[in-house]
């Protein structure tokens, strides 16, 4: 019989297997044991008989052993926790450096067994959604994001970032109605505060639906917040604006926007993220980092 190897970064499997193991029930057993031994050691009071003295000494000795044992177990757990934290830090660095293969492999290993901490698991799953997006597996990325939003209580900023990622994945999958609903949620969540991430999603939606003028208008209105909040990821917005300007027939503006986009992010990376700008990449001249090394 041929054994089937599991799918690389299989979402259902990783979601199931990464669930943290049993709680530290042994701590309570240990604490209970200490109390029992404490009571047992009380037999005989301050003037014990020979037998009672033996019980008292044995109780004290066992209490010592339990304390040392618990201390050692806590130390070992702490070391494993730190190791997991270190590995997550590595995954974060791989993602920042766009070393997607290494990031994927590290996540596959890490999430294939019960994680030590629920917080680490959540962080690992957030990274998994990013890596799946890089592999163009948007349905899988959406599954992870939906799982996280359903099962985890994020702070407002965390929830917002995750929902921006989810809306982008929906747009990539052409789930335009769902994306529209997701954007409404984002607007509510932002509480009226301008957001670069939301502007990016809205501009992408307008490009997808052929509303070039609206995309350009959003960019003109929110260029400052886009610059301040997105940093080099503002290259994505400039690329989409180049596409919008091209759709609107303003080639000079499209060239400028494409130049700005590629000053911030290499053209190849932009085309990978947004297949819609492939035509722009062919038509307009990209800025290239001196030295000419492209990614």
């Amino acid at each position, binding site marked *: 019989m041929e054994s089937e190897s599991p799918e690389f970064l299989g979402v259902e499997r990783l979601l199931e297997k990464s669930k943290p193991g049993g709680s530290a029930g042994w701590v309570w057993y240990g604490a209970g044991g*200490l*109390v029992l*031994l*404490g009571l*047992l*050691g*009380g037999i005989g*009071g*301050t003037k014990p008989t020979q037998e009672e003295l033996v019980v*008292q*000494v044995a*109780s*004290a000795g066992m*209490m*010592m052993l339990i*304390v040392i044992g618990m201390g050692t177990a806590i130390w070992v757990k702490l070391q494993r926790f730190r190791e997991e934290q270190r590995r997550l*830090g590595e995954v*974060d*660095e791989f993602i*920042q*450096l766009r070393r997607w293969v290494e990031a994927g492999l590290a996540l596959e290993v890490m999430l294939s067994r019960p994680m030590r901490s629920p917080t680490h698991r959540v962080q690992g799953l957030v990274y998994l959604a990013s890596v799946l997006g890089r592999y163009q597996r948007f349905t899988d990325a959406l599954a992870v994001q939906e799982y996280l939003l359903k099962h985890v209580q994020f*702070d407002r*900023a965390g929830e917002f970032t995750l929902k921006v990622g989810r809306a982008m994945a929906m747009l990539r999958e052409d789930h335009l109605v769902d994306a529209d609903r997701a954007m409404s949620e984002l607007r509510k969540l932002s509480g009226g505060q301008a957001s670069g991430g939301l502007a990016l999603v809205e501009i992408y939606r307008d490009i997808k639906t052929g509303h070039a003028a609206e995309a350009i208008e959003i*960019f*003109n209105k929110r*260029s400052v917040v886009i*610059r*301040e*909040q*997105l*940093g*080099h990821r*503002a290259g994505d917005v*400039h690329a989409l604006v180049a596409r919008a300007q091209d759709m609107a027939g303003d080639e000079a503006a499209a060239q400028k926007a494409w130049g*700005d986009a590629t*000053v*911030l992010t290499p053209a190849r990376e932009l085309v990978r993220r947004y297949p819609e700008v492939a035509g722009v990449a062919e038509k307009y001249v990209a*800025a290239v*980092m*001196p*030295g000419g*090394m492209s990614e």
Partner: protein
Amino acid sequence: MMQAGDAIWRTRRDLTAGTVIRYALVVGAGAVVLLTGVRIELVLLALIVAWVGLAYRTVVGARMSAESPALIAAGQYDEAEKRIEQAVRSFIPSRVAKLTNLHHLAALRHAQKRWSECAELCLAVLRFKPAKAGGMGRGTRLMLADALLEAGDVEGAYGAIMGLYQQKLSLTEATELLAVQLDYESRVSGWERMMEGVERKARMLELMPAGRSGRAQALLALAAKKTGRLDWMEFLLRRAELLSDVQELKERRKVLSELWPGEVKEVA
């Protein structure tokens, strides 16, 4: 608003008290073995309860200001100040947790651009052994170097930066160090040195938030201009304009006015 001196004094006092209590517990545990006529198991139980109580205080203390970095990043300085002050004023037996709170206060002062207070707090954190090594120590040194540069103490900043070269840094720390180092080198006119490995530096700076990245790339653009690498100057200048408010850049680093001598070009 909590004064730096007050926070440092309270931290020192609590660290000393914590050490005394820990030693007392250890000595107490040892003495139990030698004592006669006392209920050994009850004394042991009392010591364990005391130890667990201290551990609990540590967890509570660590949680008090755990959210302050996020609050600082979100610009909610008043709320961060309130939580950090509460944590600094509380007795926390753990040295690391206590120093972390002082480190958070330094980070808050850094965000508030109160450079001398920030530097004072960073120096206080680094005086203690647990903070010298590890992530907190590296973060504190980076913050110290930046605060000293902002306060105009170039020599002090050099000392802080040098301490970091012997340590293994994370990617974020290495990027932060690069930005501080470029700032330092621009102040001592180390233009050639700034341009060494410029492509790698430009790529690393892509990982930073917009403002910091824009400023560092503007400084690199200036170095490119000074060394006659005009292709790099144009490229980095364009990046800086897309990432930062040029007027603000010129105000914070007068030397950058050389890049935009005339009217400031408005970037859409």
